[in-house]
């Protein structure tokens, strides 16, 4: 087992876990999980039972993009289409 990383260390790291992403972005866990399951957030996973690792900068940029598209009035399926294609 390990210790929880401080925000300072999280901000410097290349990859973050979904829990750290909650702390960094202020987005709800259920929302991040939904985006991940819908394929809107890319992640890496070494093995099936291991932690999903999200590229920090890319994911935060993606979350900002989703947020701005939502503010522009797009629905989640429309945002998904726009992001994936």
């Amino acid at each position, binding site marked *: *087992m*390990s*210790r929880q990383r401080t925000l300072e260390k999280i901000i410097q790291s290349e990859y973050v*876990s979904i*829990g750290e992403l*909650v702390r960094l972005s202020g987005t709800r*866990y*259920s929302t*991040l999980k939904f985006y991940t399951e819908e394929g809107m957030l890319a992640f890496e996973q070494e093995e099936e039972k291991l932690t999903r690792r999200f590229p920090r900068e890319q994911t935060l940029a993606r979350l900002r993009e989703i947020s701005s598209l939502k503010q522009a009035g797009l629905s989640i399926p429309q945002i998904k289409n726009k992001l994936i294609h």
Partner: protein
Amino acid sequence: MNERTLAENFALLALNGQDSLHKTVAKTVSLRCMAAAALLELYLENSTQSGDSCESSSGGLSGGLSAALFEADTIAVIPSRSYQREALAALFKKPNKGAGCLSALARATRLSSKSLLAIERAFVEPLFESGALEEVPKLLACDLLFDSSGVDIREYRAEQAAYTAIADSLRAELLEEGPLTDEAIILLWLLRESGCLHDIFSHDELSILGGRMVALYQSSPLARSLYTLVLHRTLETTFKRFLHIKQAAFSTPVGVGLNFVFPVFERSQSVFVDTDAWFSDHAARLAALERRLREHGHNVSVLQTGAVPLIKIDNCLYRAVPTAQVISRVPIHGLRLRKCPLC
């Protein structure tokens, strides 16, 4: 960004919605666990300072901690925060006879009311200062019986963003696959012992957590040491759980209606405010209600006037229904607040 400690994070989860002025069963359970959280936080700080991890401590928690911190009656790490000092003073009031930290943690079940009050003050003061916790008036204090008896009721409320961030990052860590941090293992145990798990996790998620705890017990020395330790008292936890279920049941549309007819079922949700005079008109009744609510520090705005006005009190909508309450055979005219089930 301001980072809070493990014990402060747990305090925000455990104190949210608790009565701030009086000693209640639910708050007592939370305070005992907060004392344990302060001790465990010292353990984590110590293991960081000495460069140890939980895996390296031979017997899990008891081995590492008893050797490093609690050998004999001396404490190797000097507690830097006021709540740590209060918790240690209470837990180590008598000489430590058992197996280090575990026996000290077990003492949390026998802490006196005086010690618990000191621990509560030490925890809440820095949280008030940082704005993470606030003390808000409870609507029940406006009720005729409470107001005329001079009983004031206030409760703690954690700042919404802080509460959500702590609860959600913990949910993310516990419900996702992969290894857990020591903080998550400890918080899970503290939430189980304080009976707060139901506030954060749904029924389905709790069954997932059950499996997770079994797996942790088999794989983690820290979990193996900690999860066998019981801080709660079954009667208190049952009582707390019963009150929680009762409150949830009377928050449903049917429950709200039933509680309006029989206020005794859930007093906190059924508030009767007396008007100044018998047979007063709509406007006078509403003015008396508004005055009483404002006197107790609530934010009130009238959305709709009339015989049964619609009022917004602290972001919740209520219908104020004219009624009379008989006390010693004398009917007292007033308004009973009925929560709108949609809000």
